[in-house]
């Protein structure tokens, strides 16, 4: 039995299903993350308060973090392996290839958008999770009498730099591409197909991908429009 379970775990289908389920978990995280981020519109107190509440979770936060890191690693490692196998399986290349499906820029670029998102995640963690939340970068000029605004201030100042906002927005557009295929595709991988509901799942998945991307992008845009936060 043990050996048959091992073959199952090595099967192309089960490995893809792991990519699908870890992807779904990360979509769940993105929804929670964006909901929290929206508190930036409510001002520093609400935003920093939310961040503090998360940190006060202590060990629970670490369980969630480790779960998320495991999901990310599983997703990335398996997706890279599967893509490598797919390239090998192709054999010779066609001199002419002419898609008759819907072509699908997003489908073909999943591995590239995925890798770019991974790079973004590393930079993003350095930017807003790892960096000190009390020093100079957290003081928004001309607000709060020159006192630190904590994480809120750090985020605000970062987004006031055009290159920083620009890269962030670019990363979120790439995320939107990745999710626009990813969300609807994961249902097929876990075996969900229904004549009536699958077209709906596709539409909702696509809409969710756009909503998430637009939601995240709205934050740097808001910061750059408002420029001085209301306390």
């Amino acid at each position, binding site marked *: 039995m043990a050996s048959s379970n091992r073959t199952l775990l090595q099967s192309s289908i089960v490995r*893809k299903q792991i990519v699908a389920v870890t992807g779904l978990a990360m979509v769940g995280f993105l929804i929670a993350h964006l909901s929290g981020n929206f508190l930036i519109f409510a001002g520093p107190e609400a935003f920093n308060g939310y961040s503090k509440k998360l940190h006060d979770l202590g060990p629970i936060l670490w369980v969630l973090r480790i779960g998320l890191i495991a999901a990310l690693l599983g997703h990335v490692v398996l997706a890279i392996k599967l893509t490598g196998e*797919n390239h090998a*399986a192709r054999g*010779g290349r066609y001199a002419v290839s002419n898609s008759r499906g819907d072509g699908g820029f997003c489908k073909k670029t999943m591995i590239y958008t995925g890798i770019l998102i991974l790079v973004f995640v590393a930079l993003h963690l350095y930017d807003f999770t790892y960096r000190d939340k009390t020093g100079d970068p957290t003081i928004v000029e001309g607000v709060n009498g020159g006192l630190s605004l904590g994480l809120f201030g750090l985020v605000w100042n970062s987004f006031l730099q055009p290159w920083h906002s620009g890269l962030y927005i670019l990363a979120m557009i790439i995320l939107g591409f990745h999710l626009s295929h990813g969300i609807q595709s994961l249902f097929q991988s*876990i075996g969900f*197909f229904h004549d009536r509901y699958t077209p709906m799942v596709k539409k909702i998945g696509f809409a969710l991908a756009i909503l998430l991307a637009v939601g995240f992008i709205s934050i740097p845009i808001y910061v750059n429009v408002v420029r001085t936060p209301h306390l």
Partner: protein
Amino acid sequence: MSKKINLTLKVWRQPDNRTSGRFEVYPAQDIDTDMSFLEMLDVVNDELEKEGKDPIAFDHDCREGICGMCGCVINGQAHGPDAATTVCQLHMRRFQDGMTLVIEPWRAKAFPIIKDLAVDRSAFDRVISAGGYISVRTGAAPDAHAVPVPKDSADQAMDAAACIGCGACVAACPNASAMLFVSAKVSQLALLPQGQPERDQRVVSMVSQMDSEGFGNCSNHYECEASCPKEISIKNIARMNRELTRAGVRS
């Protein structure tokens, strides 16, 4: 009304799997538009033979879209430009006078080239041997109403059973994945009462044989469904994904 057209063919020529291949250019003159694509190749081959050249090797048998032997990629599309059509059913009236057609074999690591456009699809046979059957004693056929089958299951099993195993799904898939073929074969039995006793073992064995043949993984591009001459639905792929999870949970 039939007319005559002239075409230029760029055909993949490869003596065997160990030798590398290349494209050769041949004229196809005075082609009757009522001909099928394979008849056009016959005409070109006659000319090649007259010139003492080696005719283009291609697979075919029934020439009426039911055996699954024929197949090649024409201008980047498996079985050519028409939907739900095998290359033997494709008519030359589909092409315009003066066109250039690039004709290539199915390209997949799991389908080694035998010669020119003919590829070795015995990987499919090995997947079937791994579990694409039911083990029953033969004898007199049972009465049709002896085993009740819901209409919907019967229809879906019939749709899956329409697969002729031509390999266009593998050829069209960017990953050379055989998921559409294997899932059709898994589905046609999983949907029917006769397939139940071996249901779990079947999907596990067939998928593991599919993997070891060197086919790629499905990444939900759905080029297979769009290229399938029998319009097999990717619904079957979702079903196979489900079947495998089910087998795993029950093992």
